[in-house]
C-alpha cells in the first residue's frame, strides 16, 4: 500500500499539491497515476500513497488510528513531539503497518507493544548505567 519511493523531490512536489488544496475539498488526489489520501490535523498533514484497489475511506480511518495512537503515546501530540521524536513516530508506525498493510485494528494493542519495547530500552539503559557506575567505582 505505502509507496516505497520517498525521494525528497517526490515529497516536495506532492506536498506542494496537497498544501494548495482548499479545505472543503475531498481528501483524495490523483497524482502521477497514483492515488494519494491525505488528512489534515491542525498544522500537520498526513498523507499516504495507495494502490488503485485500496479503499480510500478506509485509509482515512487508518490515518486517524495512527494519529490517535500518537496522541495517546505522547499525550496530546503536537508537531514538535513528532520532530524531536521522529524515530519514535516511526517505531509506532512500524507497529501499525507492515509491508503496507494494517497489522492490528486495536489501538490498545499497538500502544501496548510500544510500551513493552520502551521498557526493554529502559531496562538496557539502566543496566548499562549500573555497569558503568561499577567500572567508574573500580577505576576510582
Amino acid at each position, binding site marked *: 500500500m505505502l509507496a*516505497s519511493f520517498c525521494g525528497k523531490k517526490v515529497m516536495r512536489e506532492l506536498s506542494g499539491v496537497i498544501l494548495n488544496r482548499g479545505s*472543503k475539498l475531498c481528501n483524495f*488526489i490523483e497524482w502521477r497515476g497514483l492515488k494519494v489520501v491525505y488528512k489534515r490535523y491542525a498544522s500537520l498533514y498526513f498523507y499516504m500513497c495507495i494502490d488503485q484497489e485500496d479503499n480510500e*475511506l478506509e485509509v482515512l480511518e487508518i490515518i486517524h488510528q495512527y494519529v490517535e495512537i500518537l496522541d495517546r503515546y505522547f499525550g496530546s501530540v503536537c508537531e514538535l513531539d513528532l520532530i524531536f521524536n521522529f524515530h519514535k513516530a516511526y517505531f509506532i508506525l512500524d507497529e501499525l503497518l507492515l509491508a503496507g498493510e494494517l497489522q492490528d485494528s486495536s489501538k490498545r494493542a499497538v500502544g501496548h507493544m510500544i510500551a513493552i519495547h520502551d521498557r*526493554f530500552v529502559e531496562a538496557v539503559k539502566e543496566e548499562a548505567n549500573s555497569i558503568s557506575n561499577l567500572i567508574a567505582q573500580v577505576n576510582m
Partner: protein
Amino acid sequence: MNPFSSGTRLRDMIRAIRACKTAAEERGVVRKECAAIRAAINENDHDYRHRNLAKLMFIHMLGYPTHFGQMECLKLIASAGFPEKRIGYLGLMLLLDERQEVLMLVTNSLKQDLNHTNQYIVGLALCALGNICSAEMARDLAPEVERLLQFRDPNIRKKAALCSIRIIKKVPELAENFINPAAALLKEKHHGVLITGVQLCTDLCKISEEALEYFRLKCTEGLVKTLKDLVNSPYAPEYDIAGITDPFLHIRLLKLLRVLGQGDEDASECMNDILAQVATKTESNKNAGNAILYECVATIMSIEDNGGLRVLAINILGRFLSNRDNNIRYVALNMLMRAITVDAQAVQRHRATILECVKDLDASIRKRALELVYVLVNETNVKPLTKELIDYLEVSDEDFKGDLTAKICSLVKKFSPEKIWYIDQMLKVLSEAGNFVKDEVWHAVIVVITNSPDLHGYTVRALYRAIQTSADQESLVRVAVWCIGEYGDMLVNNIGMLDVEDPITVTESDAVDIIEIALKHHTSDLTTKAMALIALLKLSSRFPSCSERIKEIVAQYKGSLVLELQQRSIEMNSIISKHQNIRSTLVERMPTLDLLQWEEQQSGSIPTTTSTSAHASINIPNGVAKPSSAPLVDLLDLNSDDVPAPSSSGGDFLHDLLDVDLSKQSGVNHSPNNGTNALMDLLSIGTPTQSSSAISDLLNSGQDNKASVSPLDVLSSPSSNSVQPTSSAGAIDLLDSFATNSPIQENNGPAYPSVVAFESSNLRIGFNFSKLPGNPQTTIIKATFTNLSPSVYTDFIFQAAVPKFLQLHLEPASGNTLPASGNESITQTLRVTNSQHGKKSLVMRIRIAYKMNNKDVLEEGQINNFPQGL
C-alpha cells in the same frame, strides 16, 4: 567517555538545525554534524553509534546524502542489545532500499534474529524483512517466516503473515508453501491475526490460481460465518470505531469474499445473505460505516449476478452521489465506473448528477466525473452531453482544460452523427481551447472538412467568423488559414449557403487581411506562418486582383531567417511573378483526403513523417505517403528532408492539373507522367532524393529509380522508355494498373484508322491506334506532334486527361523540342484502357504547352473523333 565523540545529543542537533535562518546556514550545521559522525564511524565508536544513526536519519529526512552511514546500520543490527537492533533496523529501512547491494549483508543477521529467543527482536526482524526485502532475501528467509506463522505469540504470527505477503509478491513461486498456514490463520480469534491472515489469503489468491481454488472451496463458508459473527457482535470497546466493531476487519473480509466470489456462482450464492445484511444494516453517518458500505458495494458489483443485491448496491451509490461530503461523492463516482459494466442503464439514470459533478469545485471530483461521463456517452445522448461539456469548457480551469478538451475531441470523433455537427463542435472546441488540442485532432478536422464538399462554404464562413474572435488559439488559426486559402472563393462569393447561415460579406481583400494578420501575428509559430504563405499563394490565384498585394506580402519573407519561410517565400514569389500560366493549376482545389486511410495511418499501420516545420497544412498521408499538397510542396521544396514523395497523391494532384474529376476520388488516377516531368522542367528542380528511396521501399516494383534524375536527363535520352521520374513512377505503381516498364507491343489487333486528333494554326497532332492481342480494352495510341509554324518550339509538353471510365498512361515523349515547319516530329505513346469498352467510346482532353520565340503558348482541346470500337 570517548573524547572524540560528537558531543551533541540528537535533540540539540535538531534544535540547531531548526534555528537556522537560511539554507546556507542549515547546510553548514549539517556538514559539521556529518563530519563528526564520519569521524566517529572511522573510529568505530560504539558508544554513540545509536545516537549518530538517529542523527543521520534526521539528516536524511531533510534530503542530504547519507550513504556513508549505511554500514553503521549493519553494525547496529549485529549488536546484541535490543535498543541497538531497534534503531539499526529503522536505519536500514529508512536509509536503504531493496536496490542496494549492502542489503544482502543483512541477510545473515536477519536469519539469526528471526530465530532469536527474544520475541520482540524476532518482531523487529520480521518488520524489516517485510518492508524492504529483495527477492533473494525473500527466497533465503522464506522458510523462517513460514515457521513463524505458527509461533506461539499472536503478535509474531500477525507480523509473519504480513511479511509473507511481501515474500510472495517478490517470489510468486513460493506462494504454494503459504497456502496451508494461511488457511489456519483464518480460524483464529485474535483480531490482529485475523486481519493479517485475511490479507495474506487475499494476496495469495491474486498471485496463485491454486490458492484461489483452495480457499474458495475450503474457506468461503467459514469466512461468511466470521463476517456474520462480526456484524452481529456486541459492543467491544477495544475494536469499536464509530459504533461499529472493527470496521477494518469488516473491510478485509469483504475484500477476500470479493476475490473468492468473482467468477464463481456457488461462492457468490454463499455470500448473498451477509452482503445484503451489511448493505442494509450498516450505519452510514460516519466515515467508518461508509467505508464498509463502499467495500460492500464493490464486492456486490464484482461477484456473480444477483439482481436484488445489485439494485441495493446502485441505490447506495445513488445516495452517496448526492451526499454533501466530497469524499463520499468521490468514491461514489469511482464505484460508478465499475458499475457501468454491470448495469449501464442504472448508471445512465444518474447522468444529470454526474454532469453536475464535472463542474464541481473539487478537482479530484471533476476528474472522476469527466471519466465517468466519457464512458456514459452513447449515440442517443452524445449531443446534449457534448453541449454541456463544451459549455463548461469555457469556464473551466486551465489545468483541467487539457483533459476536458481531449475527452471532448475524442467523443465528438467517436459519435458524431453527421458531419455538420462534427464541424460545429470542433470549431467550438478549437475556438475555446485550440491551444490544448493535439495535432492529430486538428489534422483530422481538416480531413473531415475536405470530405464534406457541400459544407465547404459553410465551414469557411464559420471559420472566418471564429478567427475574428479567437485568434489566440493556434490550432484554430491554422485550420482557418488552410480553409480560407482553399475555399477563399466560396467565402467571398457566399457559395454553398446553408439555410441556417446568415449572409456575410467578405471581400477578397478581407480574406487576404486575415491571412496576413495570421502571418504577422507575433504568437504564430512556424507551422502557422508556413501554412499562411501557402494560403496566400492559393488566394493569389483565386483572387487575381489581390495578386500584387499578395506578392508584396510574400516578398517580405524572402529574407526571413527561418529557412522554411524564406524558401517558400522565394518560390512562391517566383510562381506569382513568372509562372502565371501554371499557377492556377498548381493551386487548384485539393482532392479529398481519404478518411479511411488517414485513420489507418493514425492507428499506426502506415508510417508517416510528421515534421512540424514541414509542408503545408497537413502531414497526413493520402494513401501511403503524403497528401496531395505534398507534390506541390515537394516540387517547390528543394530540401524536402524526411518526407517521402507523393505516390498516389501525385496522381491526384496531376489529376487536378488537368481539371478532370475534381476532388471526389482518391483512388482512380489518370496520371500522365508527362505532367510531372513538365513541371519539374519548368521549375528546374530535380526530384528529391528521399522520395525515390521511400517509394522504392514502399512499392518494390523494381523500378529504375534514379532518384536524382534531373529532367534534363530524361530529355537527353528521349528514346529510353525505362527512365521514369520517380514520383510519377510511384504514382503509377500504387495504382497497379500501370506497368511502367512494359515495352510497347506490336500492333497485332484489328487495325483502326489514324485520325488527326487536333489541329491548330501552329500544331497538328495525329493519333495512330493499335491494340494488343487478347486485350481489347486497351488501346495503344501513338501520337505524333508536328510543328506547323516557322519557329522552333521548345519545352514542348503534352498533357492529356480522360474521364473516369478510362485509364490513361503516357510514356515519355521522344523529345521536347519541336523543329519548325514539320521538319521533324515528336512522338509519344499513350495507352488507354476503356472499362466501358463497347459501350462508350474514347474521349480525351488535351493541353499542349510550349515556348515559341521565348513566349509561353498554351493550347487546349478536346478530342472526340476517336474511331468507334476502341
